[in-house]
Each structure stands twice: as C-alpha cells, then as structure tokens.
C-alpha cells in the first residue's frame, strides 16, 4: 500500500522536498515505515533519531498501524512559540 509522507524543517531541507510516497506491505506499522524510509533515504538517519511520527495529524508510536491512504508526518523536535 502507498503511504503519503510529509517532512518538515531540517528533514525537508536535506531531502529537498516536502512530500514522499513510501510503498509498504500491509499490514504495516510506524516502525516498518521508519525502516523503509531510512532504507530509501539513509542521509536522514541522524535526523530521524530525533523525529516522532504522526499519523493523520496525531502523534503515534512505533506500534501504530498504518492504513492505506493515511497521512504520515515526520516531526522534528518542535520549536514553536
């Protein structure tokens, strides 16, 4: 299944774009997505260590299950305010 991934801030700078598509075998979790993402883009490995993953605009953890068409965000440490 195809997962839409949005990246931000330093991750977006390194990758040179904001949106990616990652192909995963269902069923897949956030942990599977992380692995696939790093395999495809090893240059963000250090940054990914500090990122959390959102699924459909909610914070998730590694065990969160992904559904076809969901929107995944790669969230570096936030610095709003």
């Amino acid at each position, binding site marked *: 299944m195809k997962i839409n991934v949005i990246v931000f*801030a330093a991750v977006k700078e390194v990758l040179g774009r904001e949106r990616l598509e990652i192909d995963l075998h269902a069923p897949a979790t956030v942990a599977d997505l992380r692995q696939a993402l790093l395999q495809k883009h090893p240059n963000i490995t250090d940054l990914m260590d500090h990122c959390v993953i*959102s699924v459909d*605009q*909610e914070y998730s953890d590694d065990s969160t299950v992904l559904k076809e068409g969901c929107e995944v965000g790669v969230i*570096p*440490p*936030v*610095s*709003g*305010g």
Partner: protein
Amino acid sequence: MIKLTEQPIQAEQAIDAVAHCNAGANLLFLGTTRQWTGDQETRELKYECYQEMALKQMQQLHDQAMEKWPLLGVCIIHRLGCVPVGETSIAVAVSSGHRQPAFEAGPWLIDRLKQVVPVWKQEINQQGDSTWVHPLNPGATS
C-alpha cells in the same frame, strides 16, 4: 479562538477574543523575537508548520485548558513566516472569573504549545545565516 497567520499579531486581537462579561481576569502572553541571546544577535525568526496538525493540536490545548480550569475564553494565535525583532510570534490569551485559573492556564498553555504543536523556527542572524532551533539550541524567543 485558534489561528495561524502570516500577518503581524496585535495584542488587542487576542485579548478581545477572550473578552466575556463575566470575566474579572484576562491574561495575555506575547512571545516576541529577542534581539540578543547572549552575544548572538538575531535579525529575525522564520516559522513554518504542519498546518492541519498544528491547528488540531492547538484546538486540543484549547479544549484541555477549558476542561482543567474554569475559563471563559482561550485564544491561541501563532504567526508563520518571518518575524522580525520585537514582533510577536505567539499570542496566548485566557479569561476567567477570578485571576488564579488565568495565571495557571496561561503558562500551562505556552509550555504545552512549545512541546506538542508542530511548528519549527529558524533563527536568522545579522549575517543572514540561518539555524534550525531545537531543544539543544533554544534560540531567540521566550
């Protein structure tokens, strides 16, 4: 009121949003871009966000604060794009009948916002160099 905006934020805007005839206490916090942080001179901060999620998280903070304290109004406005020295990047306003809930909810909201709302800032110094701000490099804000 929950809002993300590229326009300058006015104090009146946030305080008016929480006005209520039964409010005795109205608290407004404005986070502004600081010129000097130690010996580092900042020219401006540049904010970006994950818009749908930022609005969702800000709305959740709004709702949680209304549940935790007897508040009459909660307003959170975050500015995006470039925020020059002295201008406001974040406004948080709350109102309540008496002042204690307002004085508790105000700092709670800004603390939580800085933890959970997906907004990121870059610090642009006088030489035009930019750095992503993160917990180990806290930058020129409140």
